[in-house]
Structures are given as C-alpha cells and as structure tokens.
C-alpha cells in the first residue's frame, strides 16, 4: 500500500534556517517499520535527509523520534500499526532537545545528566576473589532497568523537562536507580542524598509520559517513586519534596481529596514568604488556563472510607 510520510526538516546551513516539512510517497507492506520507510527515502528518494539509526532491532537506541506526536523507536514501530489503512504518518525529531539537522538532535545534555548521577558501581571493601554473590531475583529486577538503551524517548516527552531543563529527567534517574537497587553497591544513602536535591527525584510530576513511551519497559517514573520511598525511609524526610508528600498524605486523609491550595503552604511552611511568593506565577498560570483549584475545598461525601484506608496503611505506632 502507499503511504504519505511527512518529515519535519531543518537545515542549519540554509539561507533562512527555519524548520519545514518534506512529504514523501512510499510503498509499504504489513511488516515495514517507520525506520524502513525513512531508510528507503534516504537511499532512493532524498539523500539529504539526516537521521541516526543503526541496529534496526530496538537495541542500539539510535532512532528515537516523534512519530505522530509521540517519541518512539522508528525501528520498533510498524507502519501498519499506526496507519492501518495507509494514509499518512508524521515524523519529527525528539522533543526537549535542540535540533542539529532534520531528525538529529543534540544529545549532549542527555549524556551530561547521565554522567551527573555517578553512574558506576561503587562497592565497598576489597573485591572478592570470585563474583559477588547476589540473589538472582535482584539481578532479574535490575535487568528491568539495565534494559534501558538510553534512547532518550522518555526525555523527549517528559512534561517537567518542557518547563525546567535542569530536571535530571527520567533516563538519568532510572540509571541512578540501577545503582541504588544494586545489592553490590555501597553508596545507596549518599546517592539518595544527592538525588533528593533540587532537579532530582522530587521534581517529577508523575505524568506517566515516560512510562508510556519507553520502548523497553523500563518505567522510569516507577523507579523514581521507589527512590522517593527509599529516601524517606533513609531519614531524608525534611526535604521539600518529602514534605510535599507528607502534606499530600495529611490533606487527602483529612478531606479525601487533594487541597491544591493548601499543599504548597504545608510543603514550604506558612512563614516562608519568599517561597510562597514563588508560587504566585504558578497560581496565575493556573487561573489563566481555568485550572485554579476551588477556593473552598469540599470534603468528599464518603471521606470516612478514605480515612479508613489511611488508618489501615499507617504503620502501627
């Protein structure tokens, strides 16, 4: 069948370097992947199209791009799945990264953030003669994160990175988790201590995008949540983020729903004027977009049930 492929292009050397669209007609069948089509275009139609690709089997992490609006590996996406009756497919470079040319983005900040989490094993004491003994379950569990191919899809679509480029982001944090959870690593606490700082684990808004787009089932958000728990258990509970969570729990257990107006107050403390002021823009933006939480916070009608859940979950004192 015939397919129309729309590709977002950019040539920094053009007289007027502005993004534009190229449209190509290609023949595809049931098994053709998006990458196959792009290679076909590059080899037979238009050699000026730049993209990164290598393995063709979802293992090298080169070919992340936005296909119909979401980051995916081009080589893992069959055209027949996204455009079952032919029609058209739209391809753009990854988001949250600067475009160098066409579908090629600048990944330097991506690698810098990976490096920022000290991504190497730090065992304690002298090395054993043989291997470190470790339960297979732990290794299988780690395999779930080690499966990350550093493709950047999660970073492309992360909603926090869109507004705060300092956020370490899902890929680097998933990488950090790989060491936090490694029974051979001795630096769990120091690692958590540095991850709980600004731009770390507490900056994620739990939007789930990274979980949805990850082609390898790494589920970065879930790993971030586990690290939050670990950080709190390790006694790092005075942190803004940790207090945010505490406040969250307190409010929900009180009224059965989140009082978004009280949350910031509880998190930073009522007398922290500067921090309170810093919330103003968020509040304003929310107001403009019609998302301002109700001023009079109503209790859920069956709030008793919610409170019962919390009592059940609360550790016995």
């Amino acid at each position, binding site marked *: 069948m015939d397919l129309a492929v729309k590709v977002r292009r950019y040539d920094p050397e053009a007289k007027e370097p502005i993004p534009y669209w190229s449209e190509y007609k290609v023949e595809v069948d049931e098994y053709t992947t998006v990458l196959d089509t792009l290679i076909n275009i590059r080899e037979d139609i238009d050699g000026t199209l730049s993209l990164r690709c290598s393995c063709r089997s979802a293992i090298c992490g*080169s070919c992340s791009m936005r296909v119909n609006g979401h980051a995916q590996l081009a080589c893992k996406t069959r055209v027949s799945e996204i455009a079952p009756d032919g029609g058209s497919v739209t391809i753009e470079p990854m988001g949250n990264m600067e475009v160098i040319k066409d579908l090629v983005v600048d990944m330097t900040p991506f690698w810098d953030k990976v490096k920022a989490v000290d991504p190497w094993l730090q065992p304690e004491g002298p090395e054993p003669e043989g291997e470190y003994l470790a339960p297979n379950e732990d290794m*299988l569990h780690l395999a779930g994160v*080690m499966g990350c191919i550093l493709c950047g899809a999660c970073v492309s679509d992360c909603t926090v990175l869109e507004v705060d480029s300092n956020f370490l982001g899902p890929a680097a944090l998933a990488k950090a988790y790989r060491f936090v959870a490694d029974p051979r690593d001795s630096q769990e606490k120091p690692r958590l201590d540095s991850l709980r700082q600004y731009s770390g684990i507490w900056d994620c808004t739990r939007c789930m995008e990274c979980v949805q787009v990850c082609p390898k089932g790494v589920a970065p958000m879930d790993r971030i949540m586990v690290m939050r728990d670990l950080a709190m258990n390790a006694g790092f509970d005075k942190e803004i983020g940790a207090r945010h969570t505490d406040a969250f729990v307190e409010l929900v257990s009180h009224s059965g729903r989140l009082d978004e107006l009280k949350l910031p107050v509880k998190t930073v403390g009522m007398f922290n004027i500067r921090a309170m002021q810093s919330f103003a823009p968020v509040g304003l933006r929310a107001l403009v977009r019609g998302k301002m939480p109700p001023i009079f916070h109503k209790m859920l009608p069956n709030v008793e049930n919610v409170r019962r859940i919390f009592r059940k979950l609360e550790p016995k004192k």
Partner: protein
Amino acid sequence: MLEHDVLVVGAGLAGMRAALAATEMGANTGIISKVYPVRSHSNAAQGGINAALVDRGDAWEEHAYDTVKGSDYLGDQDSIELMCQVAGEELISLEHMGVIFNRDDEGRLGTRAFGGQRRARTFFVADFTGQAILHVLYEQLLKSEITSYEEWFVTSLVMQEGKCCGVLAMEIRTGRVYLIKAKTVILCTGGLGRVFEPSTNALIVTGDGIALAYRAGVPLMDMEMVQYHPTTLKGSGVLITEGARGEGAYLLNKDGERFMERYAPSMMELASRDVVSRSETIEIAEGNGINGSVLLDCRHLGEQLIKEKLSQIYDIGLDLLGIDITQEPIPVQPGMHYQMGGIKTDVDGLTSVPGIYAAGECACVSVHGGNRLGANSLLDTVVFGHRAGNHAAEVSKGTTQEPLDVEELVGQEEKRLAEILSRDANGDRVARIRLDMGTAMNAHLGVYRDQNGMKEALDTIQQLKERYTTVPVEDKGRTFNTDMVFDLELGLMLDCAEAIAVSALERKESRGAHSRTDFPERNDADWLKHILVTSTPEGPKISYSPVVITQWTPEERKY
C-alpha cells in the same frame, strides 16, 4: 593540538576494554567512535560470553578443545589456549565492574548451553548480554579520565616512514577534519557485515578499520571465513539468538521433522554454526523449507521461560513479524553474521606495522579460525582488547611523538572529501552500489561457494569500485551529513569485499565456513595454513602463514 599516547578507534567492547586498560597503565588515552559508545554494535550480542570456570567443574582445556574443533583446526592453538585460560578472570572482572549476570540458586553466576560446546559455559544477562556489558564498560569510561570523541569518523590513518602516528577524522556534527596525533593506534572498529546483504549486523558495521589497516599495508588474514548464522529473519536478516536453541528450541522443516537428526545426531540443533547453516541450506534447496525458510520452534519452552530468558526475541517476533513466539514457530534462514578474519595481529594486538594495533571483530589473532563458536566473540573482544590496551600503553612510554605537518595533512584530507562533495549527479547512488555489492557477495560468497560464482563476484566488485570513483553525494552540507558518511563507508567496504573474494578464491578446499561445491573436502595436506592478503599498488597480494598446533592434531569434525 589533539594528542594522545594511545588512541583507540571504536568504542564497542574491544575498544572500551582497550582504552580502560591503557588509562589504567597511566597512558594518556583517547577513544574515538563514529557513534555514541552505547550505540556500538556490541550491544546486539544477545546470547552470552564463554568462560570455563574451574569452580563449576569446567576446565579451560575443554573450552580450548571445543574452540579448536569449532575452528575446523584453522585457529592458532596457542592463542586459543591463552584466551581460554584468562576467560574466567576477564568474566569476573566484568562482574566486578557491575555487569548484572544472571545467577544460579546460590547467587553465583549462572550458565546456559551454546552451540558447538559440550558443556554449558555461556554466562549471560537475559538475552541482552552484549548491551548489559557494553553499558557497564561505558559507565567505567565515564568514570575514567579518557578523552572521548563521540560521533567522529576516522577517515585515514596517518603514516610517516612506515609508522602510524595518528588518525585523520571528521567530526560528523560540523564536517570538520582534525588530525589526532597518537604514539599508538588501536583499531577496534568491529566487523564488516554490511558488505553482505542481508546481514544480521547493524547499519554501521562497515569494516572501516579492516580497510584502513589494509590501505596502510597491514596484512589481513582468514578473510575468506565468513560466518552465516543459522537463525535469521528472512528479508531484514535480524538475528534470533542461538540462546533460543541453547534453551532447547527445535529446528523443523515443512513436515515438522527435526531435520538436524540426520546431519548432527549427537549435538542436533547445537552443532557448530557452519554445520547447522549448511544443513538448513540443503533442506531448503531440496524443497523441505517453507518459502525459503525453516522453522525455529520455541513453543514447548513455555511462556515463562521465554519471557524471562528470551524476552528480546519475544519482542522481535511481535514487533517485526507480528507473531507470538510462545504460540507460533519463527521462520528462519541462514544469514551473514560474523567475520572470522581480519587484521592480522599477535596475542598483544600488535600488527606488522609499528604503531598499529587491532582487537575485537576487526582483528584476526586467530582464535576463531574457520568458524567461531557462539559466545566466543565477546570473550575475544575483552581478552584481546585488554591485552592490546596494556601493550600499546607500555610501548607508548618509550616512544616520542614525531613532528607532523598537521596543516598539510588536514588540508589534503579536506581536499579529498571536498572532491567527493563536489561531484555532479550522474544518476548513480551510493545505496545502489552497496546493494549490488551486498547481493553479489551473498549470492557467491555465502554458505556454498564455487570458482565461477566467486570469480563473478570479484568482477562485480571491481566494476563497482569504478562506479564508486564518480558516485555523487546528494547532501552538500557540512552539518551532520550522513550521506557523506555512507559514501566513505562504501569505499571502505569495497576494499573488504575484494579482500574476501580474493582470499576465498585462493582456498581450494572446504573448511569451516568456507564450503566449496567444487572442492567439497577438507585438505590438510595443502591448506592447513592461513591465507594472508596485502594491498599493493599492483593489487591484492596473497601469502601464507602456518597454523600453530600445540596439543590437538586435526581430525575429522563430527557433531
């Protein structure tokens, strides 16, 4: 001025292992790769890495014997002994760096069975062993002081008075050419899979280092030995790991018969790769296949095992074929997979040209001889990468940097590249030349070969080399010009193709992966020797070198 004691070209397993070794020895080390290190093709290795661990009741001699036999006695036994002796040490050091190998019930490293070996001695991380090791070496690279040039393409080696003093390289992002000076250069550029079409190899596996060394006058060895893997997908050539058969999957013909019973009654599906690929080719040729394929059946392994240990091929089935391999068999056929031959080196990675080292798939020590055993290649990369790094660092200590006319050298290279960019359209395309080459190589230098076919392939290559000199590059820009990169790669691949065809025509017998219908028998009297090919102004020149035999005298190979 970019300058290093040791410069490693390639950041796959061999390259990163070499660089880590060199920096540990105190050498000022650089590593350069045309893709980000974790994109290197080593990550495609699914199955695992071999080592005979004494405390598991295994012995290195057994591993060495299996390797020698697998090589069809063309492997050098002294090198094989060395590799198998240090395998355990290398494996444990990878574990100490952080590789999350699968464990047994006691928390020790677990093993799986692999082809051509009588014992389960393959250590693994699910079915992404290569990726798991590659990413851990990358972690170590980040921790180290090594300078890393990422997305830089090496275009030439710099030679002065018969000695290598560095490389010329193009920074892909800007298209600028730089000279990086080095006292020693270690080539770790991987295989040459894309010389064939189809191939299991990634698109970046284009034999660059092999051709660069060849052009610099280093002899290539065993180039006729090209491995076809028994289980690849039709069309794309994507690999289904031997781990599947290691875990117990069957090969079936169209009647549902486990045909390997007739070809290798004792090892069955786990006979050596050349043997299984030939058996499949015969089945398909005799009409026992289905659409040119046979079937790989995993169904009886059960959903849990498949999802836990063969997760990647479960995904490949779903993504590329739209089938659930727990419910349906996979159609497979032999496909080009690995180059046993390469840049001739000694056990320290040193070539006959001062300053040039090689390790990994681009090198030929030779530990694989006529046929590589599954999971021996990852071992080869770390063992010889490590040794080359050590040796190069040591040698660099006693060497002083020659003065070079950097501007002149960079200028010449820029001119060469500019000429390619300036060519006018002539209707021809880089991709078309590559396809013609790949198709000819697959047709005539595949599982079965004969004189006429190979001659035809060589003629084709020579014509393609002509076409190559005028083929235009469509993208005229400097920034991330992938079109230009393909052009450079094609030139290097054509040299590799020629070296393969010339060597294969020379070997008038059948041994390992080199099966000739016109010379169907192995002939130890005349051909128990390596074939070397050297580039000269008059064309490729053939010479020989003896096979080193220590404790295993050649005998007939039965599985």
